[in-house]
């Protein structure tokens, strides 16, 4: 593993809301071309960790490196200093928190647990709009349509992308009129349109039936191959996670309790106690 390039490195991240510690000193690393899953029982802090990585929340403490560049760093401030329960207090001096849009521009794209497509737009427009951040034209050239070549390229790229993910047959349908599984797929396609090097999927299989889940597993695999990217996902669906992940991090009550390949995780007693043993059907 060590010879691979690190795409995302999370160092001692703690997220604290008042006295509640949602994520406790979490460290993890994702290497190039990997599919890594972050799992844990309900309320374990997965989504919070996700939101800290994508810049939605400011972490109370910790640092996050993306492609070996420091993108987020914070240490307890003000009121939090008193409440802070982590161990590395005082280690970090400055705050750097890139906003979600800046992180996306650096190449980190995400999907949402409860689908957030742009609902008045068609499938095509949803993907096309996500290409906006890679524009080279400025406001005025765009306003007066002096960027026709770029516009044409954006549209062509969008079409190509939709063909790759097999959504080109519904490209003129309203995004929200699609069946659930396709909406999930479209959200992934929209994230891919931003040309990411790391794709973050927040419970991609939530609300899917077994058939759709099997297809999704295949789809995620294909996406990694076709777009040559790294994927980090949060998921409840054990079959899916065990099926597609290279490595798995398990957290419970905000703390990491295990890390390893699917086989290692399945036989890890701590994990079974915390999670698999309790809710087999999840």
């Amino acid at each position, binding site marked *: 593993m060590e010879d691979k390039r690190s795409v995302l490195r999370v160092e001692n991240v703690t997220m604290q809301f008042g006295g509640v510690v949602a994520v406790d000193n979490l460290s993890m690393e994702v290497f190039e071309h990997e599919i890594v899953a972050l799992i844990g029982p309900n309320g374990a802090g997965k*989504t919070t960790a996700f*939101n800290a990585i994508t810049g*939605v929340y400011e972490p109370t403490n910790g640092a996050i490196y993306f492609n070996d560049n420091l993108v987020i760093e914070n240490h307890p401030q003000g009121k939090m200093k008193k409440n802070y329960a982590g161990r590395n207090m005082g280690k970090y001096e400055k705050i750097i928190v890139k906003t979600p849009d800046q992180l996306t521009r650096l190449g980190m794209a995400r999907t*949402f647990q409860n689908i957030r497509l742009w609902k008045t737009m068609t499938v095509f427009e949803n993907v096309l709009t996500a290409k906006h951040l890679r524009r080279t034209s400025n406001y005025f050239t765009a306003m007066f349509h002096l960027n026709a070549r770029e516009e044409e390229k954006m549209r062509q790229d969008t079409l190509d992308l939709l063909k790759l993910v097999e959504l080109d047959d519904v490209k003129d349908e309203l995004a929200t009129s699609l069946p659930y599984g396709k909406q999930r797929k479209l959200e992934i396609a929209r994230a891919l349109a931003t040309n990411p090097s790391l794709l973050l999927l927040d419970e991609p299989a939530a609300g899917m039936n077994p058939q759709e889940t099997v297809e999704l597993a295949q789809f995620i695999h294909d996406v990694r191959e076709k777009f040559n990217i790294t994927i980090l996902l949060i998921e409840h669906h054990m079959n899916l996670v065990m099926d597609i992940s290279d490595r798995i991090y398990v957290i419970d009550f905000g703390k990491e309790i295990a890390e390893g390949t699917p086989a290692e995780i399945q036989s890890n007693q701590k994990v079974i106690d915390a999670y698999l043993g309790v809710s087999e059907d999840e």
Partner: protein
Amino acid sequence: MNIMPYVIRGLATGGQFALVAIGYTMVYGILKLINFAHGDMFMVSGIMLIYMAGSTGAMPIFASIIIMVILTVILGYLIEKCAYAPLRTAPRMSSMISAIGVSYLLQNLVSYITGGLSKQYPEIPGLSTSVRFLGVKDKLSVFVSPVVAIVLMVVLVLVINHTKFGMSMRAVSKDFETSQLMGIKINRVISITFAIGAFLAAVGSLLYFSKNTGINHLAGSTPGIKAFIAAVVGGIGSIPGAVVGALIIGLVESLAKAFGLADFSDVISFALLIIILVFKPTGIFGEKVIDKV
């Protein structure tokens, strides 16, 4: 310069604004709707009293006041039923636009009835008499206003925090659907909220207009907008906030006059509004809103 008269008049105007501001704040708390028609309801209640007991009417003043209050409450109820209830599931912008429409309608209706002219407000025995207090001589209504506002605020806060109805009101303001599932008749709660707001506007109009000479169809817009600023400054949705905000606005405007900035008084209150919004977007007593992803 003696600043006392300005302080007292400021508190008085503040008290009158407060009664209107509570109406804004209660409706916002429950429906998340800025009831633009509230200031016009205030004006309509003044006009109603004029037509019953003023120069054009011949009814005894106390009977007219009671009827006026009842009619204003009915008006508040009707506005909610006709203009806001049908839009309950619509986007928030729609109900705000509907509120603007109602405000427009009330103003135009009154302008049609009065011919757009200013009408003389009747003398109200007691309220219009001059008294001397703390070395300041003014109409009784001036001294009574802040007291009435604070008493009514305390009563309302007690009702909201300690009665069953108050509990259902708080529940509805948090979550419509869950409240409904818990067996709360949300439409009834909303109607009563509007009725209370209308009642306070009627009382406020009595205090406010008794010190003014004439009122016309636009008389509601200035106190309406000031009360509204007060509600936002205090933290819209919070009743004590509305009263505190109104007293602040009243004082600030009155003191502006004291220091010869009368021309600036409107500008100052709006500037205060924007400053508060920028530094504490939900007002002094407002709750912080957290976005969920």
